[in-house]
């Protein structure tokens, strides 16, 4: 009943509705209109089946700054291409020999990414030519043919929406709880509650339950609006989405309660909450893919809770990942959940 009352209070706060339910949606829609046209780096997957023979070519390709090169097996790279994670995949066949092979093949989604695919093809051809002439001038030119490959044609929206969903889960957990509780504390509302027989834990449970309910509602709305109006390529299991959302919420609620514990006023909450959330917003791949980050930063950011949440939601929503496939993310969230809840238990104070 306290949950219901809390829910009622929450729903009557126009600002809260605006910030929790509408703002994330607004961000998604606004960013959805922005088209990132300019070609930045080209994500090139290289499948080197020629071993050492292909090494020289590979090194030359890597020296081209336009390419963001990833190496992998044929299967994995083609899989990434299908997901839209690569712009182009080059196959260096086992029989490849510099300056003798006549042909080589690259794959790219010509329909969805015509510019990037064509530009990538041209640059690759140049590299192949250089490689051929460097060995023994006048030998045979290896012609690159770019074959069309149908990727799932995922848009920026498909990337963005799960990210924004993760962001709003984090904001609700950290800002919502920290500000909410500090205000209840400061205004003496909690003291008034403690002279009634209600137990503090029941109150916390009600608060958490209320927020999880709001969260489920929010996830449903966001995914629904995404599918209906924003052309979201949602192929995931919605139950898994809810599960990950709730896990993420628990992590950030824990941090929220910790902050509420160590802060005496709203003025103290704000900077602390920002210190925690802003770096994650920037680095956890919410708005932009983490693949653009320098290597060492990328490895640090891959263990952030928001990264686990965003990556997990994204794989489930648009790649249709199964429970087994997002186990690393779920484990990551569970670990963070243990950390944040332990912290909350230590730091949370009623007075």
């Amino acid at each position, binding site marked *: 009943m306290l949950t219901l009352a809390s829910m009622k209070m929450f729903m009557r706060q126009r600002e809260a509705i605006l910030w929790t339910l509408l703002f994330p949606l607004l961000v998604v829609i606004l960013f959805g209109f922005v088209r990132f046209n300019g070609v930045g780096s080209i994500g090139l997957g290289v499948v080197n089946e020629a071993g050492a023979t292909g090494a020289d070519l590979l090194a030359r390709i890597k020296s081209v700054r336009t390419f963001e090169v990833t190496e992998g097996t044929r299967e994995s790279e083609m899989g990434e291409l299908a997901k839209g994670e690569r712009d182009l995949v080059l196959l260096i066949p086992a029989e490849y020999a510099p300056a003798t092979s006549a042909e080589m093949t690259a794959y790219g989604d010509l329909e969805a990414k015509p510019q990037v695919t064509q530009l990538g093809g041209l640059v690759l051809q140049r590299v192949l030519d250089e490689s051929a002439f460097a060995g023994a001038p006048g030998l045979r030119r290896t012609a690159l043919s770019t074959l069309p490959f149908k990727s799932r044609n995922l848009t920026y929206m498909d990337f963005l929406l799960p990210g924004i969903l993760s962001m709003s889960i984090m904001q609700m957990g950290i800002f919502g709880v920290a500000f909410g509780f500090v205000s209840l504390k400061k205004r003496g509302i909690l003291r008034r509650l403690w002279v009634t*027989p209600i137990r503090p834990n029941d109150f916390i449970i009600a608060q958490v339950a209320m927020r999880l309910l709001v969260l489920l509602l929010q996830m449903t709305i966001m995914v629904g609006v995404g599918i209906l109006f924003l052309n979201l390529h949602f192929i995931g299991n919605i139950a898994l989405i809810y599960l990950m959302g709730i896990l993420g919420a628990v992590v950030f609620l824990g941090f929220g309660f910790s902050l509420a514990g160590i802060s005496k006023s709203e003025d103290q909450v704000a900077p602390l909450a920002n210190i925690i959330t802003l770096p994650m917003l920037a680095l956890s791949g919410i708005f932009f893919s983490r693949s653009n980050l320098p290597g060492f930063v990328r490895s640090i950011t891959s263990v952030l809770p928001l990264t686990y949440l965003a990556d997990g939601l994204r794989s489930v929503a648009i790649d249709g990942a199964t429970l087994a496939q997002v186990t690393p993310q779920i484990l990551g969230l569970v670990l963070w959940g243990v950390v944040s809840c332990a912290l909350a238990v230590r730091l949370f104070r009623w007075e």
Partner: protein
Amino acid sequence: MTESRNIVLDVQDLVKRYGAITAVDGVSFSVRAREIFGILGPNGAGKTTTLECIETLRPVDAGTILLNGLNVRTQSQEVKRIIGVQLQSSSFFDKLSLAELLVLFGEMYGRSVDPLALLDEVELRDKSRAQVVQLSGGQKQRFSIAAALVNDPVVIFLDEPTTGLDPQARRHLWGVIKRIRSEGKTIVITTHYMDEAEELCDRVAIMDAGKIIAMAPPQEMITTLLAGGFRKEKVERLASLEDVFLSLTGHTIRDE
């Protein structure tokens, strides 16, 4: 003694320290059923801390507090069920109407309450759909008392209920408090207004620096003082400025 059976609150040698400061230093008093008992004293005398110890809000360092026979230190949950509390400077949830708040508070005691009847008690029926933020100071205090009544408590604690109110609102609140007592409640009130204590309280305890320095019915205290040869330097006029104020502005409360 028959009187001892009527004692609903018994505080013995209560001590409460905050670090090096002893806020309440060996306080003892008892309150009889249907009594309005006042705790007077300047700010920082330890009135609020004493109340908070009784209300189970603060752990006690030494002494015993029995409320209706229940030990506050060991049976706090049971004690909470039979007390009604109005805290100094505490607020209520936003976004719920007065009626909804009373229902919610009732549910915390596992009771279903009639919010309108409670609001009648403090003359706020017409505000049942309003939220606390929309109330005036006097109305807030009255609502606070209504919220303290949801569990039909044995003892009600009022911590400086009239601080900051205008003379009309104070008098109105006194009327509410007297009526609640007439309905069989025991009331413990803190104040630093002497006129309030004289008007409302059957007995008062005067606290200073964490100790009770005097305890008796107000009239008895005055008689004792006069008997000791005390005379005011300026003889009391037959009317005070407050009487002037009230005769000019009337007794009707202005906060509605």
